[in-house]
């Protein structure tokens, strides 16, 4: 439809919007930021979750149930035949799933080896050959075609695999299309004959998984029950995708921060919209009065405005969805690095789409409803005559009261939190709400504190700006409502920088402190990099390596560490079995309130559990922890708790020898070598040679730490970028308000010029106003930012089981304040120049 065919009122709205394109863009940006964050976070989170779910789904193919032993231990291969005989089961195929490292020219690549029965596996999975042939009972292997070409492996070539029995060489006999099981683990799968796998992984006559394809129309619940009756001790049957649970728990922490941030950016976006909309209304008061005088009802005026807002909302939402998808592309890559596992490309599913479509227009309408309604309700007469009633310059008392009430409500929620009155589910819901409350409340309550605040600002700026400073502050105080709006925008910008910023910084600090404790040894040797969920790529190294390493010159001590998923108290958790030493308790990063003698008790076979697990199972020191092992369920006393970042703190720590009693440790997953004093450099060169020969992955402590930072860089970077973005948009809001400020003051400024103020003085006056606004926003903003950061710190307790000490990062505060003042002054430069260049006579006649 061409613009001229639009109904008159739409044309009016359209042209009015075109007249202030910058403001329209600002409104759109506000919506885009809110929607894009929500979409990006939601889509990426889903992609990461899907990554783990689909990984196991890809692995199982047509099979709906999988039988495994605890800790993926091996069991007799015959069991597959027994299970296949069950009436509801159509086929049962046994296989071996083991992590290994594919040693390539650029270092080891973590892969999953699937040992399959070439004759029977097609009952569960389809194989689409791209090139070559299928495997037989020979040593040949199959690779995904994409994976092979990425790593420069050709058909007929040889792969070197690092397994528990050392380096194994195998010819590549076929390449698979990227479908079905070849998609597992991001395509890093090596298929070999079951017999070969049994040999390489020391599992003669065994499998560690039986996958069950059910008869057509069989009820999965009945089948599961029937299978369970046939299982021996230590075995479980379940839906394969459940194995991703631990990884998903580990994700929760990141998800929580992302979710809070998306809520905060939504609020900031809404505030930017509110700000732009208020400006818009202020400017158009007379027009609405005209419409009212011509007989438009209150509703018609309100509807007109809401329609404009809704159009912006819809356009902004569409743009926001697109921007969100674009952001999620890079955020997904960041997640991929963080998790150490392939994450599928983000897809816009129904949930984020619905969320965006619901929230985008909703936040716009929410931000504009009040002002639009008030615009409809204004008495047209004052605006028609160009008189602003004295009441209009003051913020309504009602606002202040509402604001204080909101802050009080937020305080109550916080108190409930600290006192532990809330369940985690309720708290997770209420906390973002409380943050929104305190933000909105503070903006509303600004009216009350603005007076004293401006006096304070006046006192600070007085010596700096002299008479112009005093004039500036006086002018700002006279237009309290407009000033409050700008100050509010700035305050929100600062709050959202300081709040999450402080928390991200704190989290990074804690992470580093933890790392330094846990990875205190000089060197670490692994088969391959580990994924964050610790579910798929744990390469076992032969025990014998440990003895060899201990012989090296300069090696003071070699620790062996194993980890694997277990079920603790019915929950998925990560078991870490290490050669803990009583004289180095920091290896565990123990909790502050542990009783003495934890390390001794650990050596006696008790366990130390991560605080998050303790929290989630409601267990404390002295309680018994139930652990599912392949030999049956055991109950071990909890000797202490520790603060862990592995698996989101869902960890169980055992002395390695004690763990060996219950679990088949089959080699070590990690060797940590502590060097003799001053011998680290020589040891390093020795280790390099040692690992080079054997295809092992060597990291120094520093490298590991860098690696950790590199992994988190993508996600953390996203957080910073997002915050910066919100900050920039809020700053645009400041430029907008300042421009309006100058525009509305045209007459006053003209008068000042007429009675002899110099251009420089006018410029100084506007700059003083900007500085005053910046300070007035920055001071409460900084305080509120700290409050917000504190609130974000609260739910950490549920995730990690302990509340990390609350830290305030002064440099962050200082930077935010400095940047704010700079932005305000820069934003004021153009308006100041404009004010200084005002032609006096037209200015005096300006309406």
């Amino acid at each position, binding site marked *: 439809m061409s613009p001229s065919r639009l109904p*008159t009122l739409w044309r009016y709205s359209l042209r*009015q919007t075109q007249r202030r394109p910058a403001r329209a863009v600002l409104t759109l940006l506000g919506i885009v930021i809110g929607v894009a964050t929500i979409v990006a976070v939601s889509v990426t989170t889903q992609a990461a979750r899907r990554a783990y779910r689909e990984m196991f789904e890809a692995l199982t193919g047509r099979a709906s149930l999988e039988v495994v032993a605890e800790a993926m231990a091996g069991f007799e291969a015959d069991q597959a035949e027994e299970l296949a005989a069950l009436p509801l089961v159509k086929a049962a195929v046994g296989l071996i799933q083991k992590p290994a490292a594919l040693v390539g020219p650029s270092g080891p690549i973590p892969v999953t080896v699937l040992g399959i029965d070439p004759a029977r596996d097609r009952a569960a999975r389809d194989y689409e050959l791209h090139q070559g042939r299928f495997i037989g009972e020979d040593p040949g292997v199959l690779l995904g075609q994409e994976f092979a070409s990425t790593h420069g492996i050709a058909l007929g070539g040889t792969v070197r695999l690092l397994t528990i029995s050392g380096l194994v060489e195998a010819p590549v006999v076929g390449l698979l299309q990227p479908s079905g099981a070849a998609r597992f683990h991001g395509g890093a799968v090596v298929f070999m004959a079951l017999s070969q796998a049994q040999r390489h992984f020391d599992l003669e006559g065994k499998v560690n998984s039986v996958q069950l394809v059910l008869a057509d129309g069989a009820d999965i619940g009945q089948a599961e029950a029937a299978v369970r009756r046939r299982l021996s001790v230590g075995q479980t049957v379940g839906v394969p995708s459940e194995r991703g649970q631990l990884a998903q728990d580990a994700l929760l922490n990141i998800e929580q921060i992302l979710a809070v941030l998306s809520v905060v950016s939504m609020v900031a976006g809404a505030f930017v919209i509110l700000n732009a909309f208020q400006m818009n209304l202020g400017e158009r008061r007379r*027009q609405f*009065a005209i419409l*009212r*005088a011509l*007989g438009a009802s*209150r509703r018609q005026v309100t509807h007109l405005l809401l329609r404009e807002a809704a159009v912006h909302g819809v356009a902004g939402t569409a743009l926001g969805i697109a921007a969100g998808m674009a952001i999620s592309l890079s955020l997904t890559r960041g997640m991929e690095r963080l998790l150490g596992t392939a994450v599928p490309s983000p897809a816009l599913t129904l949930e984020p789409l619905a969320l965006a479509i619901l929230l985008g227009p909703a936040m716009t309408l929410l931000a504009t409803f009040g002002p639009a309604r008030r615009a409809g309700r204004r008495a047209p007469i004052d605006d028609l005559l160009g008189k602003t009633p004295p009441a209009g310059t003051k913020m309504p008392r009602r606002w202040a009261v509402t604001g204080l009430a909101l802050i009080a409500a937020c305080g109550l929620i916080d108190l409930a939190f600290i006192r532990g009155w809330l369940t985690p589910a309720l708290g997770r819901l209420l906390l973002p709400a409380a943050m929104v409350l305190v933000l909105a409340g503070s903006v509303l309550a600004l009216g009350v504190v603005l007076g004293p605040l401006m006096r304070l600002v006046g006192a600070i700026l007085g010596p700096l700006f002299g008479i112009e400073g005093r004039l500036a502050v006086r002018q700002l105080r006279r237009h309290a409502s407009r000033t409050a709006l700008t100050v509010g925008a700035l305050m929100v910008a600062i709050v959202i920088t300081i709040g999450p910023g402080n928390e991200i910084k704190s989290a990074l600090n804690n992470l580093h402190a933890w790392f330094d404790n846990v990875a205190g040894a000089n060197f670490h040797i692994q088969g391959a990099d580990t994924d964050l969920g610790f579910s798929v790529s744990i390469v076992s190294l032969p025990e014998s390596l440990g003895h060899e390493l201990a012989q090296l010159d300069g090696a003071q001590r070699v620790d062996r560490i194993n980890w694997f998923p277990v079920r603790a108290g019915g929950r998925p958790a990560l078991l870490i079995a290490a050669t803990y030493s009583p004289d180095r308790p920091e290896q565990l990063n123990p909790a502050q309130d542990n009783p003495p003698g934890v390390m001794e008790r650990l050596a006696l076979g008790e366990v130390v559990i991560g605080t998050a697990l303790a929290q989630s199972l409601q267990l404390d020191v002295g309680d018994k922890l139930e652990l599912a092992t392949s030999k049956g369920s055991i109950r071990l006393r909890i000797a202490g708790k520790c603060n862990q970042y592995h698996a989101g703190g869902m960890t169980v720590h055992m002395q390695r020898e004690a763990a060996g009693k219950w679990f088949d440790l089959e080699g070590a997953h990690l060797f940590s070598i502590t060097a003799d004093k001053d011998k680290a450099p020589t040891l390093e060169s020795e280790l390099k040679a040692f690992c080079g020969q054997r295809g092992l992955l060597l990291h120094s402590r520093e490298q590991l730490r860098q690696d950790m930072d590199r992994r988190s860089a993508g996600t953390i970077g996203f957080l910073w970028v997002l915050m910066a973005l919100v900050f920039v948009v809020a700053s645009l809001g400041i430029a907008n308000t300042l421009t309006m400020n100058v525009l509305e003051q045209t007459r006053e400024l003209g008068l000042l010029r007429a009675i002899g103020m110099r251009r420089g003085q006018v410029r100084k006056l506007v700059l003083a106003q900007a500085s005053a606004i910046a300070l007035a926003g920055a001071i409460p903003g900084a305080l509120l930012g700290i409050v917000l950061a504190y609130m974000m710190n609260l739910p950490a307790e549920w995730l990690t089981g302990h509340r990390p000490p609350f830290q305030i990062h002064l440099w962050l505060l200082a930077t935010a304040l400095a940047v704010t003042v700079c932005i305000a002054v820069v934003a004021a430069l153009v308006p100041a120049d404009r004010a200084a260049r005002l032609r006096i006579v037209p200015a005096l006649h300006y309406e």
Partner: protein
Amino acid sequence: MSDGTHTVDVRGLTKVFGAGEGAVEALRGVDLQVARGEFVAVMGPSGSGKSTLLYLIGALDAPTAGTVSIDGVDLSRMDDNRLALLRRQRIGFVFQAFNLLDVLTAEENVSLPLVIDGVPEAEAARRAAESLGLVGMSGRRHHLPGQLSGGEQQRLAIARALVTRPLLLLADEPTGNLDSASSDQIMRLLCRLAEEHGQTILMVTHDARWAAAANRVIRLRDGRVADEQTLPPARAYPQVVRELESQL
């Protein structure tokens, strides 16, 4: 009056702005009746309450005491929606400051009251064109207000006020922002509307020169009606001119 109902019937109208010591009594019990087809001017110095009276009659503001009835209906009995409906359908406003929407063309401005009233766009445009013709602005229908002279803008505003064929035309200092040639033109237009179309007009002005065009003059002073004068039908102009020339 044939049916005994006045187009405007104001009784005991009082309006106080503010409260307490700073309260200002703009109107202190004004009675006023305007019959259908009358052209009435309300005169008075600034601060006499004349504009307030006009806005109360036009339902743009509510009185402190007293009643305003338009065509026999008491405004105090109407809610805001019905008042909006009244303004939309029965009253046309002309302001000193024109109050046009500057992003809309002349024709769109004029059609606005109809659009607000839900008249289909095509018909609204047709009637707007008609109304523009009435004030001699047909040639300017696609211009924006900013491209028109003050006099033209006010003619546009009158066209807008007339487009709904209102019962009552309210004009607040319609010549206040105009030079005297444009003012003459506007006043001629109002006289023509009163004489040829029988349009009921209530106009507020502080200037005797424009008030004299009306058929009846009300003088307000300090919020009260100080004097009221019905002016006799004027003689045909050649007669008046001859008389003046004879005195040269």
